[in-house]
Every structure is written in structure tokens, then in C-alpha cells.
């Protein structure tokens, strides 16, 4: 990543800010801190380098959806488009949101940056494990590219396959130890780009309560996960998160990056993505306009274990 691409990012961002009247351009500064640049000077601080580790799509979703709503006379509020700098993995998450119509293509100005991997701050200068062999280095959706495309590798499922080969007792020993270490701080859920529900059934009290919500609805809403932090509740917390990511998770690894306990959560999402490919031959965010996997029903699906 020569500073050539930084120049291109800033130039494109300023042009878009002027011509398209962007609310702001979301990117990283030189230290890798997410920045919301809304003036030319702020855009000059944007950069893309080895420490640009955050997936910025959750911020984009927040910036756009917080503009939605109705004006006083009942018409839809006009959404000011927002610019964003995306790497390959971010762009796949963004494409998933576009396919799910959470964000409209016209609301987003996308500056794509082909990426050769970013550095894991805990690993003394080495790349993240997910970046060593990455099959999505080049952005899949963009308005402009900041530098030329780079060579992508074959998707590497070796770690997942290693676990699949384990015996069931070994697998449980591995996951029980991991689940016992989880403190349910919700960082994995809050940083996930495709996890955008306002009201999540895994939040401690999950009712999106309004003034007129009836007492029964509040009283009899099931608590899917208790607040106690122990192996059974953590097991259900993580097992409950996964079905909501079927055919949606792009395995960007943000959940593993943000986990303060450094749990290998990407093993779960990579396994999920691998199964989706094997069983349904489906890949999340493969092309624009793709229908969600779970929303499609198919007679030809294999019956698998069903008696």
C-alpha cells in the first residue's frame, strides 16, 4: 500500500464530498482509528495502511439508518449519502447489506482499497490469521478503486477441517474451555456488520418497548438466554447467533478481532460458511442482487440427516 493509494482515497473522497454532497466519508486515519471526515481537512487525515483493522460497515449502517424516518408531514426523510472506504472483506459485508436492502446503493459512495492484509496488534507485527490466506482481498462493490487489484488466495478451511476430524469428546473439550472463558460482553455481536437488528433476542431484556406495548407482551416474552455467564448459557448464546448468520456471514473475522478474551470465534463462522457452500452451494455476497439463502426454499435440497 504505497501512499499513492492514500492520495487517491483523499482525492476521490473530496471529489465525492463536493459533487455528491456526502454527509461524511468514513475511513481510517494513519493510526487506524475510524474517522468520520466531513471536511476537506479531515479527509486529508484519511489513510489506509497495515493498522486499518476496523470493519467500518457498522458505522455506515448507523449513519444512514439514523437519518431515516418520517418528516412531520409524513413523507420519508431524504437520506444524505455517506462515503466509506472498504477493503475486500468490508465490501462483501456491505454488498450483503445492499442485497438485503438495508442500505440503498444510491445512499453509499464506496471507495474500494485492495488489501494485502492488516496487522494483529496482539501478534507483535504479524498479520491477522485471516489475512495470511484471504480469498476476498479485492472489493466486490465500489464506485472507485484506490489502487490496482491484488492476487487473491484460495479460501483456507484447514483449521475448520482440523476440528471436524477431531472426536466428539475432543471437540467438546475444546469448545467447553472456550465457552467457559467467554464473558458475554456482546463485543462480537455489536461489531458484526451483518448484525444490525435494533432489538436482538440475545440482549439481556430484549423487548423493544414503546409506551403502548401491552403488559402481557412484556411479561410473556421469553428470555432466550439468562444473564448468568456460564457454559450452558454461553453455549446457547453462540449457538443462537449462528443461525442468524446462515448465508449472511462473509467471515470478515471482526468478531474474533474485537473479542477481549481472544476467543477463536472465526472458527464458528468459517465452519458455517463452509457448510453453506457444501450443502447449498451458496456464498454470501457473491454478486449484486443475490437473494438471501434462508429466504429461498428449494425442493432439490438434500435431506441430509432427516429420517
Amino acid at each position, binding site marked *: 500500500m504505497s501512499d499513492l493509494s492514500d492520495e487517491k482515497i483523499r482525492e476521490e473522497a473530496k471529489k465525492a464530498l463536493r459533487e455528491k454532497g456526502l454527509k461524511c466519508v468514513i475511513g481510517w486515519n494513519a493510526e487506524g482509528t475510524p474517522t468520520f471526515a466531513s471536511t476537506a481537512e479531515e479527509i486529508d487525515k484519511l489513510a489506509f495502511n497495515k493498522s486499518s483493522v476496523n470493519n467500518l460497515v457498522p458505522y455506515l449502517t448507523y449513519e444512514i439508518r439514523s437519518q431515516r424516518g418520517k418528516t412531520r408531514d409524513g413523507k420519508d426523510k431524504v437520506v444524505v449519502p455517506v462515503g466509506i472506504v472498504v477493503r475486500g472483506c468490508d465490501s462483501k459485508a456491505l454488498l450483503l447489506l445492499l442485497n438485503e436492502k438495508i442500505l440503498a446503493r444510491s445512499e453509499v459512495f464506496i471507495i474500494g482499497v485492495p488489501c494485502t492484509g492488516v496487522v494483529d496488534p496482539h501478534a507483535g507485527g504479524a498479520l491477522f490469521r485471516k489475512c495470511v490466506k484471504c480469498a476476498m482481498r479485492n472489493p466486490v462493490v465500489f464506485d472507485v478503486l484506490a489502487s490496482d487489484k491484488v492476487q487473491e488466495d484460495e479460501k483456507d478451511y484447514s483449521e475448520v477441517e482440523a476440528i471436524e476430524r477431531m472426536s466428539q469428546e475432543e471437540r467438546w473439550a475444546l469448545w467447553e474451555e472456550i465457552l467457559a472463558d467467554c464473558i458475554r460482553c456482546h463485543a462480537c455481536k455489536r461489531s458484526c456488520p451483518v448484525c444490525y437488528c435494533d432489538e436482538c433476542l440475545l440482549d439481556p431484556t430484549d423487548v423493544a418497548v414503546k409506551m403502548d406495548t*401491552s*403488559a*402481557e407482551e*412484556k*411479561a*410473556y416474552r421469553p428470555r432466550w438466554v439468562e444473564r448468568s455467564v456460564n457454559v450452558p448459557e454461553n453455549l446457547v448464546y453462540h449457538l443462537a447467533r449462528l443461525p442468524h448468520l446462515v448465508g449472511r456471514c462473509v467471515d470478515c473475522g471482526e468478531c474474533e478481532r474485537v473479542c477481549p478474551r481472544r476467543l477463536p470465534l472465526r472458527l464458528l463462522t468459517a465452519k458455517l460458511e463452509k457448510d453453506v457452500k457444501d450443502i447449498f452451494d451458496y456464498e454470501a455476497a457473491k454478486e449484486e442482487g443475490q437473494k438471501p439463502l434462508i429466504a429461498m426454499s428449494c425442493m432439490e435440497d438434500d435431506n441430509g440427516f432427516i429420517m
Partner: protein
Amino acid sequence: MMSAKNDYLPQMAEITSITQETTGERAVKTFRIAFKDKSAKMDWKAGQTCMVSVFGKGESMFAISSSPTKGHIEFSVQRMGRVTERLHQMQVGDELGIRGPYGNGFPVEQWKGKNIYFIAGGVGMAPVRAVMNYVVDQKEDYGELHLLYGARSSRDLSYKAEIDALEQGGAIDVRRTIDVAEPGWLQIDNANPDSTKFDPSTRKFTGFVATIVTAMKCNPENALAVICGPPIMIKTCIGSLAKLGWKDEQIYTTLENKMKCGIGKCGRCNIGGVYVCVDGPVFTYAQVKKMLPDQ
């Protein structure tokens, strides 16, 4: 080494009587309770609260709605969520857990000789009822007493028999108001309350509580007001009183926040640096104005 008292352990109590105050979606019931351990006794000040345990559902903080002079403990509970829904299904004899009393309560000892306006809205009548009955039972220590009780409709007015008796008793001047007009309830124009002339002995009005406060011209001379109810009602009533020349120290109110421990440890009921459960729930408006706008 004597271990410290366990403030999270509730005392077992059972419901001795249930009165259905109002019906409908947001029904209100008054529960009278008695401790299972007959020797157990709790003395409390009007305006204090208790954490009521409904085992299996959780705990909620309720104002004690009976005056200490009555010698029994009552809570008036509106059906709102998990705990209150279960409470409203309970019968006489069912068991509860009680811990408390918590909070500072109304400083009645400083009110000797004052005229007192009790202003309540909807279920806000619960804490007001406790302090009103306490003051009425020692009528001679205080000046003129007034009650202004407002609700959405006449069906939503709680403690009907009790308030009617007070009205006849003459110890306190009782007025009621409702939001939606009904026959026999004098309509006062909310836009400009002073425009409607009315016979001073009128008892039943239609109009927001704040409107009636202005219309009644509550006299700030050697007086103080107790206002409890939904936040919007408290705000508008304080506005009306201010226009009538009331000073902030003369107005008392209770604030409400989500509470889980009730003893100032779990860190959630704070408004700025003030913990509503231990520093409140009773505050003068002067104190509320000094608080950070953390509402």
C-alpha cells in the same frame, strides 16, 4: 464475627387484601400485606419505597401507599410488565418478599404549620396518598390542606371511597379533574385557564392538572406543594405554580428510575451523580433544577 445484615434478602410476607382501584389495560390494584413472621415489623416514613419480590419474575420498587399512622403496609401497583403482570394475577394469601424501606421519604417534620397542596396524577396518587393521610391524621399540626387529583377519566381515579370520605370529613379540600370531558365535570379551557369563571365550590373539573392548578390560583403564602405523577404532568404543574409566584424550594416531587438493588450499589438509577434510590425519591424542585439534565 457477626456478618453484615444481608440487604438483598427479602422478608416473607403474604397478601391480606386486594382492592381493584381501576380496570383496563393499565389497571391499578392496591395490595395490603402482612409479614409472615408476626414479630417482624417495619417502620417507614411516608414517601419511602420497598423492593417487592415476586419469586420467579423478579423485584420491583414500589412506593408504600399507606401512611405509617395506618399501621398496615399497602402498595398500589399498575400493570406494566413482568413483575406487575404476575402481581395482578395474585390472590389473597399468596406470598411476596419485601425488602426496605428505602429512600428518604417526605420531610413532614419541616412542614408543621404550612398549608399543603397535594397534587397527584394517575398512579402518582400512591406516594401522595401515604403522605396526605399522614398529614390529615395530624391535621392540627398543619395549615389548610388541599388535594387535586387528576386522571385520564373518572374510571381511572383510584381510592374512590377513601377520597369521598375525606371530602365529607372536611379535613382536606378535595378537587378532581379528568382529561376527557364527562357530564357533571366542569370544563376548564386548557389554553387559557383563567378565562372560565367557576363557582369556587366546584369539586369536579375537566382539564389537565396544571390547568386546574392555575384556575384554582393555589396561594404560595406559607404553603408547599407535593406533586407526583407522569413526568409531563410534573413539569407542567411546576410551570403553573411558578407563574403563581411559587418558589422552587416550596415544591416537592418524587423521581423515578429503573432500580435493581435499591441500596445505591448497582449504579443504574443515577441522574448525574444523584442516586434516586438512596438520595431520593423525594426531591425539592430546587434540587431537581441543580441536577445535571440526565433525563
